[in-house]
């Protein structure tokens, strides 16, 4: 009953926010994107123990595929170079077809990419996996900035949003909301069943999980492909929200989005359902405050924040709550049994 009320209330707030704060629509759209980042990372890093710095690769790939489809559907490259920044370049219908087709295609393509990459990379363990994926992100950025077809180092300008449709911020707010909620529900649904048990077994001890007959490779690939699917669709939309794609600083941004998604999941508490959501919200607000009040030094502050969170708060908010108020999570301490167990232990000693 209480949950239903909360759910209804949450839905109402989520739908009301862009109308109540029209000036902050982009900010709230970004907030949904951050939540999606944290959730997709947590499926890999938190639940499965495969700490990846490379998930942002799929984000970038999705971004590029969507932008290229939007461009090539209605223009050839020469022509596009002249109309890219023009408001009337695409009609609303063309724009919607382009963006949703692009997002769909990039979702499918990145799942395939994840499966192919996963065949090689997902066999790596622990820190080798972490550093390999870090290398993957930077390699992807460097390769993308050498290919002329996708604009090389100067990137691609995405088509201008046709404002007669609705406000740009409003459109992307709902796109990202649908994607983030979709990711959340998928995570929840997948983790509730056999998949969740298998993935957690892999996190706890992969060799034992293998010995118990769990087909670890299949589950690892599934988790990676799921992350890739949602990340690439979000990437496609994000490219349009930002308005232009730069290979190293926007698409394959290992030092910003790539680290932030790890950080948000850890801040909230990795390996929990709600942790990444809370972590993303807090991180996004803090980061915006840094941007406003520490301008010029905001990135330095972010670096310090990474170190601070990782060193002093590695259990995350959910972990902290669980430690201090276990009854909130349904962990009950039966005082009578505890006392009895203590007594037997003492008598044995």
């Amino acid at each position, binding site marked *: 009953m209480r949950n239903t009320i909360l759910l209804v209330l949450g839905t109402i707030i989520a739908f009301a926010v862009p109308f109540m704060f029209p000036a902050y629509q982009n900010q709230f759209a970004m907030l949904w994107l951050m939540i999606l980042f944290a959730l997709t990372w947590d499926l890999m890093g938190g639940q499965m123990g495969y700490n990846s710095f490379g998930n942002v690769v799929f984000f970038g790939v999705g971004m590029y595929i969507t932008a290229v489809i939007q461009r090539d559907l209605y223009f050839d490259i020469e022509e596009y170079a002249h109309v890219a920044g023009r408001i009337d370049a695409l009609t609303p219908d063309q724009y919607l077809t382009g963006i949703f087709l692009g997002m769909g295609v990039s979702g499918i393509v990145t799942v395939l990419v994840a499966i192919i990459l996963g065949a090689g990379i997902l066999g790596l363990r622990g820190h080798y996996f*972490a550093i390999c994926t870090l290398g993957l992100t930077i390699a992807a950025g460097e*390769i993308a900035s050498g290919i002329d077809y996708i604009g090389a180092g100067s990137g691609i300008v995405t088509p201008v949003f046709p404002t007669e449709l609705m406000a740009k911020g409003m459109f992307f707010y709902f796109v990202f909301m649908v994607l983030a909620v979709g990711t959340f529900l998928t995570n929840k649904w997948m983790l509730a069943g056999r998949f969740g048990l298998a993935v957690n077994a892999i996190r706890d001890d992969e060799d034992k999980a293998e010995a118990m007959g769990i087909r670890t490779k299949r589950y690892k690939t599934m988790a990676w492909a799921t992350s890739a699917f949602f990340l690439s669709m979000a990437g496609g939309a994000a490219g349009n929200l930002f308005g232009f794609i730069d290979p190293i600083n926007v698409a394959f941004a290992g030092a910003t989005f790539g680290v932030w998604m*790890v950080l948000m999941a850890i801040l909230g508490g990795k390996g929990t359902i709600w942790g990444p959501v809370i972590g993303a919200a807090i991180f996004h607000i803090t980061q915006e405050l840094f941007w406003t009040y520490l301008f010029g030094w905001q990135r330095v502050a972010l670096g310090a924040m990474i170190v601070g969170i990782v060193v002093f708060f*590695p259990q995350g908010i959910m972990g902290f709550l669980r430690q201090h108020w276990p009854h909130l999570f349904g962990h009950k301490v039966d005082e009578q049994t505890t006392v009895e167990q203590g007594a037997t232990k003492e008598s044995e000693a």
Partner: protein
Amino acid sequence: MIANLSILFDAPIFVVQLLIDGLLIGALFALVAYGMALVWGVMNIINIAQGEFVILGGYVALTVANWGVPIVLGLPISFIVLFLVGWAVYRAVICRVVDEDLFISILATFGISILFQQLMNQMFTADVRTLQSGLDTWFLFDDMVTVSQIKVVSFVSAIVFGVAVMIFMRRSRLGQAIRATAQNARAARIMGIDTDRVYAMTYSINAAICGAAGALVVMTWFVQPFAGLAFTVRSFMIVVIAGLGNLGAVAVSGLTLGTLENFAGFILGAEFQMAFIFSLLVVILVWRNYRLGRERKVLR
């Protein structure tokens, strides 16, 4: 790409040029990798901030040179400064993650690396900087091959420096304590070795090695606030191939990597040189895993 390759076949003298340049820069990679192997072996920490220490060492040498200090002193000064920086970083952050899960320490050092990048970006701007050594260039083979003397000087000093560190590790009391801790930290503690101090010294010595390498890098090559991660990845590759605590293998892999990178930069074009390094990392790790996997015979 094909055109560049055919140049190499038509004019083999370019091969000599690339080979010399590659070997001379490779010694620096080996030096940095040796520091990483030291920290990895002793503390079981992969220091992602390795490259940032190199770049910071370069900036220190550059700054003191701008103050009018003789360039020769740049190397010892950045050695000392980076030793202190390493000590401070250990006391502030690393000592709290030594016993933690490996991913926490990777993430913490990655955070330090981002912090240092941004600090250097604020202090020295994002421009590419070099330090003119004022030394001449040798022209060999009818002026077809150029070898700048500073590269040779840096090659020799990297080797001398590496050997000095190795002798220090073998002979000195502290070196013995460090090696004992690497073998078994618990047993070392029982024997009365203050492992916390050993860790601090190891991390600081590593930072100091990086600082010295950085002083050579700024004279032979360039420094830029965001160029550090490439050094980290290079040393990681070298250590993965060479293994921990094998200085000979580290030197060979370092020289090989330097040469390979130079050839790749020439054949693929300079814009793909970084892409080559980072892709090579992925390839090496996947290949290593494939080889291990064949022996392990895991369920597929």
